């Protein structure tokens, strides 16, 4: 469908939020104590965070919660099993383009092969109102992953800040329906206003920290398996196996399944899991194909970057949101590892001598994951 545009005055946004909050739970970035920004339910525009880059936890938490009950079971004469479904209608307001891209990635994962009904139901009840980015954050690299600074698809509505108002792009029937339902709040968009939105990427690009990125090169190296073992060993040695990268990553979806019994009845739940953890691949007999941390790190970056997945899903496994940069305590986030793949992929310059790491960088770095 051809994109339609409207505008909404900034001082009418509160009316919109109030109205939407009657129809569904409106989740928007809210600033909490100590400066955390997290998606929380709001009823007014005032509650929403003003100058945020992005939330600390990705919106996947609403499609794939950290702990999700799947079914309850109980035993009468025999076992009976009832699925547990979430019926909440949600409007995710202020979702960033990178997270929209991530959501589309997850949509593909969860609808492939055996469609996941829990994800599908939550997703179907979720409306995405995106907000384009005017100022990239320090750690953002969405442009490398083709997922920003504005979304091209996947949103129901997308807002772009203008002067005293917002340009509204309608991206779906649901988006159209919202605009129609609250028609009194929206106005037509002029051709200048639309052009402003079309110029958005050009305008924002120069503000990114890095003029170039080595993302494409990293994808090539990983896909052709030309990253040396020493580098993975180094990355694995720095890794604390905390799992943080997976938890904050908007495209990570691996989960563990646990039964919580209560006598002869109970609930089966799924919870976030991480391939960083040793137990992720350990089998009951004790055999663990990825016992070494370097193998697990290798796996993570393969899964995020290898071309195979780009082919299979048509999208990048990493959307450049930069959350791993903040989350990782060991300095081996995506940008850092991409950089050091460039520098040390050949395997030279990194060596373990007498059990101590020796780094010899031709570019004068004392450490391959050092950020320039």
């Amino acid at each position, binding site marked *: 469908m051809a994109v339609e545009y409207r505008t909404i005055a900034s001082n009418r946004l509160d009316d919109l939020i109030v109205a939407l909050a009657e129809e569904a739970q409106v989740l928007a970035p809210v600033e909490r104590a100590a400066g955390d920004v997290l998606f929380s339910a709001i009823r007014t525009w005032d509650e929403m965070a003003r100058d945020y880059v992005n939330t600390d936890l990705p919106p996947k938490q609403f499609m794939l919660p950290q702990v999700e009950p799947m079914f309850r079971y109980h035993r009468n004469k025999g076992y009976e099993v009832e699925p547990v479904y979430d019926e909440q209608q949600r409007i995710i307001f202020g979702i960033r383009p990178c997270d929209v891209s991530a959501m589309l990635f997850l949509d593909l994962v969860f609808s492939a092969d055996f469609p996941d009904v829990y994800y599908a139901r939550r997703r179907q009840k979720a409306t995405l109102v995106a907000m384009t980015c005017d100022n990239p954050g320090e750690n953002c690299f969405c442009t490398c992953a083709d997922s920003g600074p504005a979304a091209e698809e996947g949103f129901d509505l997308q807002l772009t800040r203008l002067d005293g108002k917002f340009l509204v792009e309608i991206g779906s029937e649901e988006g159209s329906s919202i605009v129609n339902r609250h028609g009194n709040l929206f106005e037509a968009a002029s051709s200048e206003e639309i052009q402003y939105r079309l110029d958005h990427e050009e305008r924002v690009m120069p503000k990114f920290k890095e003029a170039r990125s080595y993302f494409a090169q990293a994808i090539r190296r990983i896909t052709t398996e030309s990253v040396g073992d020493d580098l993975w060993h180094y990355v694995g040695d720095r890794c604390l196996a905390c799992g943080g990268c997976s938890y904050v990553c908007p495209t990570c979806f691996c989960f563990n399944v646990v039964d919580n019994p209560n006598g002869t009845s109970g609930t089966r739940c799924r919870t976030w899991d991480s391939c960083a953890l040793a137990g992720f691949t350990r089998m*009951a007999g004790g055999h663990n*194909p990825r016992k070494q941390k370097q193998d697990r790190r290798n796996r993570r970056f393969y899964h995020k970057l290898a071309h195979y997945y780009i082919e*299979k899903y048509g999208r990048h496994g990493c959307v450049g949101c930069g959350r791993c940069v903040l989350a990782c305590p060991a300095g081996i986030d995506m940008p850092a590892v991409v950089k050091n793949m460039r520098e040390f992929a050949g395997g030279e310059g990194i060596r373990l001598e007498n059990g101590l790491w020796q780094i010899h960088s031709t570019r004068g770095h004392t450490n391959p994951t050092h950020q320039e």
Partner: protein
Amino acid sequence: MENVYIPKIGTLREISDELADVKSFNVRLRDQNEQENFKFRSGQFLEVSVFGVGEAPISISSSPSRHASFTLTVKAVGSVTNALHAMSPGDEIGIRGPYGNGFPFEEVQGKDVLFVAGGIGLAPLRSLLVNMLDHRSDFRKIILLYGARNPSELLYKENLTEWENLEGLDLLATVDVADDGWQGNVGVVTTLFSKTTISLENCVAFVCGPPIMFRFVIKELKERGFEDRQIVSTLERYMKCGVGKCGHCCISHKYVCLDGPVFTYDEIKDLQEEV
């Protein structure tokens, strides 16, 4: 949309002790319709739930040609399998599946079939073997080379006796270490290769057993000229969903639960990860 995570209920009928830590469970789905419509291929597996404990992937060891019930041969290694071992006939379990790709069956009709099994590796292969024996005329020569550490660790002893005397099957068994009663071959399973004739042309080898046996058997087969795509095996991984979602069974870009667990050797030999 079907909820693939909701198990059907199965009832344990007979439980037999196979080895010290291995039992076979004969199961029928509680709902008669479900049991009647229960179809699977050899090499596929089920996600078996012990409610309150968890779920584990277990391959089906009975043949798809036998319909009234199905059999799971289970070694007690973890919480779910140990819980299963503590159950009695009449107890209920959860069943999801069948999942996985299964062994090629129709595709190998008209060929010679060589089975090489070690220890409990015979369990998933038995499903295929019995199915082939039930359709004997569709296959040419069928050979089973089976080895275990010692006579007490040979699985399916009743079947073995039956198969020894079966005309359409060449069965050779061996043990690493014999006991007083053992009359047969002594040595690892690769020592059986020289005791039978295998013609390379139009032959498929199905191999299943512990990793170290697997390595030596592959070596033996390659030395005899088998091509990688003529060798078929089945992989095991930690699984939590069986439907390609939870991510645990991923090897490179393959899911063992979707693209496997049955793989030809050429599909897995280059995988970066340890098999």
